[in-house]
């Protein structure tokens, strides 16, 4: 049958060529690429037909199709694939044309992400700069989400040591950045600078970065951006496949193992299981061991579901557990200890190598249960209901005196129930509209057995939201999207203040209605707050000629202060600061404008993305004097609000020297200013750039990549230094405590070498050798809180084995 079809094609081509010989005009080509709407992966085996003719072609494994010898004139292209909705497209062919398509996999509707990354998602999958593909996820298999995302322009990593890393987008982190896994926002103690997201990168196939927070479906309170993690795709046929990745590292003398297995049947059932285990001991800086920087992690996830195209359900469970050591030398008692640590070149405590993790350390367990049900009323209309329950428990252990180090100093349990119901209406692939409601109930419990004042009080947060998002995409050359969201957030808190703190802040007058009872030196209060947050977004993108494309979008987001900003109350051992929340904070309002110019084809491809954001009531923590304690004077830091301006440019360029050699340059610059105080904002990423060269052997069996990272010195920083008097040679002298000066610029080189074993085309096994920080460069990073105490990690040699089956 197929042969006959092919013969028919050849026959027609033959006939056509005869016509072409006669007419001299039918020499046009129409080619392009068909990719998945969700993640830009190529779609293999899609059938393209020119209506009214018998011409048709199939896409190859790279999703590429090509028609040749076409006559000019209006063509109607009909595109179909067994797993996708068919689409048709009218095109007036006057010259050789590249026409790309994005298809939506039916099966993908389970993890539907109907968001369009205006800024980056090009019409032809040029958006690869804004997402991590499977190969990049594998590359960072033994590291964290934040490490992986750092390879994208405009993303930095705010770190505490090496293992605690949180992604920073456009200079914003924590509550200003959303993480969405499996279609649900991750709910953990995201407010802390030293709290890494409790998520295992290995459980996902695709990571997408949306810088504009245009995904109002997931919240209207994330001005920084949103990170969307999608699980592996399942195919609607009988199949069983899996993958195991093993990593071994010399630095830290450890490794990781991750394995997943997926089974699906032709009647729509599917099962998916995954586990990851990691274990590292103390890491080494170039000149010394970083004592107590080991990591342990063990994660499992399980998924069961059925997809019958018109309706389906899914049940998901995942458990993430880790234990992270914090550099022993960074645990200090007072300012004098800090000064002593600042004045030496290497950590004050260096012990022999061990895999053991002692206090100070963090332990986290995150569990997630997610149920999805969807149903299609008709071809155009679909509704979906998600219920999700997340439990996050977080323990932080300090060096303690008098009681065991095994009793945590912070012990928080955050439980979140959330419901999301939505209706999606789609018309001819041009119009898409979605309306949804979201209810969230969050309960935080702070265990009193710690024997330490609660850093975050017991509270219940409820949130009701509704959103409406839509897009109009009449052709491949124009796209418009919009969205609105309204959220009602309510806080109900029970907190003890010391009576002196309550009164010295004037809360006894302003918030006397919250007072419950005075107990000794403490007062129990019951603050209640309501916030109404509105968010809106709109964007357009269009082609400028054949190779260029531009987009513009505007995002208004409103964020109510988080638990830490409102209520935090305690001592931070890594910087010897006392941190206080503020009950008088109001919601943060951000207006952000994003532009993007991209060149989408040719040898040189790239994108330049400037952005501007003005944030009113920008909440930050700043110094507020000193507090005398029995351990001496401590700087007090308190959350406050100001107006802030943040702008910057992210760029990515790629140049293909040949099919074998590719060069890539990423760069990002961020400017951030506190307008009210006329000061730069703290912890803003300095200018950074990454350049890489990648060589692939002609048969793609080998791949060599060299990557150079350059991070400049941050010259715009607020001066938060303070004076401290201490004894030296029996004389009391004033010493300046320099906690502000950023470290110098640095450069580090990584080298990667990949070999595919066996058949290259469907490679089942590959080995990768990785050399990080090749030259063993000694450096410190401005965005690492441990920079006061120790250098960054030195050279590391890592071997990775990937086996698919």
């Amino acid at each position, binding site marked *: 049958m197929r042969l006959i079809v092919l013969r028919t094609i050849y026959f027609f081509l033959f006939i056509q060529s005869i016509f072409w010989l006669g007419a001299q005009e039918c020499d046009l080509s129409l080619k392009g690429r068909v990719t998945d709407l969700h993640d830009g992966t190529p779609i293999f085996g899609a059938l393209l037909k020119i209506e009214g003719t018998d011409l048709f072609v199939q896409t190859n494994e790279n999703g590429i199709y090509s028609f040749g010898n076409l006559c000019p004139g209006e063509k109607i292209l009909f595109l179909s694939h067994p797993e996708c909705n068919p689409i048709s497209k009218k095109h007036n062919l006057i010259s050789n044309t590249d026409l790309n398509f994005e298809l939506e996999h039916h099966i993908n509707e389970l993890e539907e992400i109907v968001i369009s990354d205006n800024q980056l998602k090009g019409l032809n999958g040029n958006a690869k700069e804004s997402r991590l593909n499977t190969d990049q996820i594998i590359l960072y298999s033994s590291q964290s989400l934040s490490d992986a995302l750092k390879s994208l322009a405009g993303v930095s990593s705010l770190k505490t040591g090496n293992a605690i890393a949180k992604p920073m987008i456009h200079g914003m982190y924590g509550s200003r950045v959303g993480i969405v896994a499996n279609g649900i926002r991750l709910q953990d103690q995201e407010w802390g600078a030293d709290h890494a997201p409790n998520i295992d990168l290995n459980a996902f196939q695709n990571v997408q970065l949306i810088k504009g927070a245009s995904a109002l479906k997931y919240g209207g309170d994330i001005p920084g951006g949103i990170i969307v993690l999608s699980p592996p795709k399942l195919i609607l046929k009988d199949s069983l496949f899996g993958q195991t990745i093993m990593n071994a590292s010399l630095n830290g003398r450890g490794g990781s193992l991750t394995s997943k297995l997926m089974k699906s049947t032709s009647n729509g059932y599917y099962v998916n299981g995954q586990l990851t285990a990691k274990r590292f001991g103390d890491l080494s800086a170039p000149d010394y061991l970083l004592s107590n920087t080991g990591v342990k992690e063990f994660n499992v996830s399980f998924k069961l579901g059925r997809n019958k195209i018109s309706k389906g359900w899914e049940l998901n469970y995942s458990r993430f557990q880790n234990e992270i050591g914090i550099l022993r030398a960074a645990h200090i*008692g007072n300012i004098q200890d800090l000064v002593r640590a600042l004045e030496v070149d290497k950590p004050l405590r260096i012990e022999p190598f061990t895999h053991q993790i002692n206090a100070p350390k963090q332990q986290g367990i995150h569990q997630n249960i997610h149920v999805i049900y969807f149903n299609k009323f008709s071809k155009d209309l679909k509704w979906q209901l998600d219920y999700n329950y997340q439990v996050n428990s977080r323990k932080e252990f300090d060096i303690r005196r008098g009681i065991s180090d095994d009793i945590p100093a912070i012990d928080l349990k955050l439980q979140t129930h959330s419901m999301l119901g939505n*209706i999606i209406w789609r018309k001819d692939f041009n119009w898409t509209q979605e309306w949804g409601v979201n209810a969230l109930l969050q309960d935080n419990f702070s265990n009193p057995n710690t024997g330490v004042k*609660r850093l975050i009080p017991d509270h219940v947060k409820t949130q009701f939201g509704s959103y409406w998002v839509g897009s109009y995409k009449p052709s491949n050359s124009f796209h418009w999207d919009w969205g609105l969201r309204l959220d009602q957030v309510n806080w109900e808190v029970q907190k003890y203040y010391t009576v002196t703190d309550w009164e010295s802040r004037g809360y006894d007058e302003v918030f006397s209605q919250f007072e419950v009872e005075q107990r000794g030196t403490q007062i129990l209060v019951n603050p209640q707050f309501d916030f109404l947050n509105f968010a809106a977004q709109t964007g357009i993108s269009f082609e400028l000629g054949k190779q260029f494309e531009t987009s513009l979008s505007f995002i208004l987001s409103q964020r109510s202060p988080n638990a830490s900003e409102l209520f935090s109350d305690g001592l931070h051992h890594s910087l010897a600061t006392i941190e206080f929340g503020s009950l008088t904070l109001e919601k943060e309002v951000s207006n952000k404008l994003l532009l993007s110019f991209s060149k989408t084809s040719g040898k040189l491809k790239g994108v330049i993305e400037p952005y501007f954001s003005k944030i009113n009531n920008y909440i930050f923590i700043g110094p507020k004097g000193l507090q005398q304690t029995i351990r001496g004077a401590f700087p007090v830091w308190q959350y406050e609000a100001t107006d802030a301006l943040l702008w910057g440019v992210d760029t990515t360029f790629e140049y293909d020297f040949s099919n074998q050699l590719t060069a890539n340059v990423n760069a990002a610059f961020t400017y951030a200013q506190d307008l009210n105080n006329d000061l730069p904002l703290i912890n803003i990423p300095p200018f950074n750039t990454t350049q890489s060269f990648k060589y692939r052997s002609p048969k793609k069996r080998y791949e060599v990549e060299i990557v150079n990272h350059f991070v400049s010195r941050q010259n715009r920083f607020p001066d938060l230094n303070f004076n401290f008097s201490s004894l030296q040679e029996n004389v009391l002298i004033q010493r300046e405590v320099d906690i502000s000066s950023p470290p110098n610029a640095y450069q580090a080189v990584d080298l990667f070498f990949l070999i595919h074993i066996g058949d290259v085309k469907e490679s089942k096994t590959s080995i990768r050798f990785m050399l990080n920080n090749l030259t063993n460069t000694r450096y410190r990073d401005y965005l690492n809180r441990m920079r006061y105490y120790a250098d960054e990690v030195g050279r590391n040699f890592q071997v990775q084995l990937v086996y698919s089956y």
Partner: protein
Amino acid sequence: MKQFKFLQKTFLLPLLAATFLISCSPEEPEAILEQELITTVELTFTSSSEEDQIVRWSTTSANSESITLKANSEYQVEIAFYDESDPADIEDITEEVIEEADEHQVFYEFSGVTIPFVQGGSDALDEDQNPVFINTVWSTGEIGNGVVSVYLIHEPTTKASTTRDGFGGETDVAVDIPLVVIE
């Protein structure tokens, strides 16, 4: 319209029901008794020719007390640490410090005056026979005004040093008390 009713039945109602089910009023949290807390440092000066002198530094008082010592004299100095956050239940932390002698070090630094000190006869010793300096003997010299900085160091990096910085470790107590050496 029919569709709307269906919608209402299928997810709006369960959504509301679920929300009511799970929103119940939270229990009142327990007040935390802070452990590891030291609120008070007490120095007792004993000499053969004077009455005992007790000087206290406490987080709950104004700390106006100062030490008055005679020139060219020797004093037995005993240090004590207390947790007085709950007046009904005062805890003596000194015992803990002595029990965990390996992890602790008391130390004094002087400014304005020069007062060498050595371990006292009844001083606590750690496993390696290093003095913890709970009990010390101070030898005053000439008259003068100054300050004594009193330290309790937790997990010092060394137990043998002549300066606070030399001991390393984390500071549990660091208080400055005015000191006068008179004729």
